[in-house]
């Protein structure tokens, strides 16, 4: 036993040194692979630019997003007056509105996805890890919610609570978490059978500690991938709702609202559709490229 006890000075120094030797975690490897992926890397850069533009939109243009100018109704892109994207039917500057729309669309995308992430992961990991009857019951609930038509659900919410911004997050998040919960549950069930979980149980680590220290970190890979693929879905869902008039209300705007207006004026003022649609399409592409890149980077075997 004596070998276990000696606190020897030599070993103390070794430990100090050891603290400086860092291993390559799977995340380090994944980051390197992601940065080597050209499509994903350029998508990251483009997305970053869009996000920065959206953030600093008011500084870039002399016009406000709700500033109505009756003398400048529906003019095409005009650089001399700093209407780079033209104006809309009320004479508002489209450049500013497109970037404001980007704010709203991206915010909805990220926040609603985070909502779905938190609920979905907690729910799915619990159901999957406990298993048995609890799992069965929890997943039946998900099945039932899945069967509710999305639009119907949103219309009911709007009727009950009236139109507002928060509701949009709630409605979209409430629907998106279902898929997240299913994915997480499936992953958890396969993780649960792995020997390192048995090893933890054999050492007496409690259920929630196992979920926290072993299940969640190992779920992170697939979850991160799914998150990047959920954000564009949410952006689309928001656009769809706004297109139907159930989402963002004037004078606030989002890409969905702008595209809806642009579609009406497509023949007389094509720029009103072209610019917001292009921004949205590019953003969606970027998220999908990043999602694919992450999937390959995190789990190169499944390619």
């Amino acid at each position: 036993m004596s070998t276990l006890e000696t606190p020897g000075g030599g070993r103390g120094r070794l430990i100090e040194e050891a603290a400086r030797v860092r291993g390559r975690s799977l995340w380090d490897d994944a980051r390197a692979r992601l940065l080597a992926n050209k499509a994903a890397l350029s998508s990251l850069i483009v997305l970053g630019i869009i996000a920065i533009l959206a953030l600093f939109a008011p500084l870039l243009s002399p016009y406000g997003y709700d500033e109505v100018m009756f003398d400048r109704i529906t003019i095409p892109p005009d650089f001399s007056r700093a209407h780079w994207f033209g104006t809309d039917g009320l004479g508002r500057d489209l450049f500013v509105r497109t970037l404001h729309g980007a704010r709203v669309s991206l915010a909805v995308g990220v926040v609603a996805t985070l909502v779905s992430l938190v609920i979905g992961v907690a729910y799915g990991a619990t159901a999957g890890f406990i298993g048995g009857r609890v799992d069965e019951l929890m997943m039946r609930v998900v099945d039932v919610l899945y069967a509710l038509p999305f639009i119907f659900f949103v219309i009911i919410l709007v009727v009950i609570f009236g139109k507002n911004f928060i509701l949009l997050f709630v409605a979209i998040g409430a629907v998106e978490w279902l898929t997240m919960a299913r994915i997480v549950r499936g992953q958890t069930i396969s993780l649960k059978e792995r020997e390192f979980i048995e090893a933890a149980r054999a050492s007496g680590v409690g259920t929630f500690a196992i979920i926290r220290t072993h299940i969640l970190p190992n779920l992170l890979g697939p979850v991160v991938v799914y998150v990047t693929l959920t954000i564009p879905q949410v952006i689309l869902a928001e656009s769809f709702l706004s297109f139907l008039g159930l989402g963002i209300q004037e004078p606030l705007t989002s890409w969905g609202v702008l595209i809806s207006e642009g579609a009406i004026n497509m023949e007389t003022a094509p720029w009103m559709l072209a610019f917001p649609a292009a921004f949205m399409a590019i953003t969606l592409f970027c998220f999908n490229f990043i999602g694919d890149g992450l999937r390959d980077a995190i789990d190169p075997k499944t390619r």
Partner: protein
Amino acid sequence: MRETLLEVSDLRVHFPVRGQGLFARPRPLRAVDGVSFTVHAGETLGIVGESGSGKSTIARAILRLNTPTGGRVVWLGTDIARLSEHALRPLRRDLQIIFQDPLASLDPRMTVGDIVAEPLTVAEPELTREARRERVAAMLDLVGLSPQMVNRYPHEFSGGQCQRIGIARAMVVRPRLVLCDEAVSSLDVSIQAQIINLLKRLQREMGLSLIFISHDLSVVRHISDRILVLYLGRVMELGPAERVIGLAHHPYTAALISAVPVPDPAVERGRPRLLLEGEIPSPLDPPSGCVFRTRCPKAQARCAAEVPALVPRGTDEAHLAACHFPNI
């Protein structure tokens, strides 16, 4: 007589298997069916059996990774087969396990240091971070790994090194009994020998008992004081290692021994081979009487009618076999 640590009696682990058809009742899969043995302080018990013989299920039942359907698992006087998870927790540090697949048994997202420290955080939560690091480093040293490896990740190590990490994790809480479930089966032969020597050394230094589970009799005979031969969830033969190997009473043990190659080619060629025919029967539907009778070269009518008791057949009281017509 040395102190008895573990006493397993009439252990049964049955899994319900859903039958075919809508109204079929679930049938029990008898993975372990009435197994009894003891483990004394400081000894090594080898458990041999083909895959599907229930040997891993025994290990998991002792550790309560699955729940025994019947029988008793008495650890130092306490029956742990029925204990709640909560009541079991203080006892867990005494019983540890080493797994077959070294890499799969280590969490790929944790550093080696965290992996080895994990059982310590449960068993001795009062340790300071410093003391814990100290213990982990000492343990890594003891299993032949550099303590500088604490910040590395399992995928950076070879199979043999991963198994050393697994051993460090099992031993760091100073258990009294370690179950090695096919602990060397997935390693190269030269590495197997290193790991077995490491286990022997740790056993000596820490005064542990081992249950060494393997399908490979040639591995088990090297490390075991006593050997238990398992077939279809039942004990066929149990006795001191040299007697089970040298004077196998049971036809199944004899067949296993004859399947182990002898290093000398001349002897190897001249040796009679008892080849087992057929497959191990399904534990859903085990043969009546002696479960080995469908493959036994000596089977007779009585073997189908009567279950042979596990009793001493020869001169040694400690050497038991379950066979109506043993080789004595």
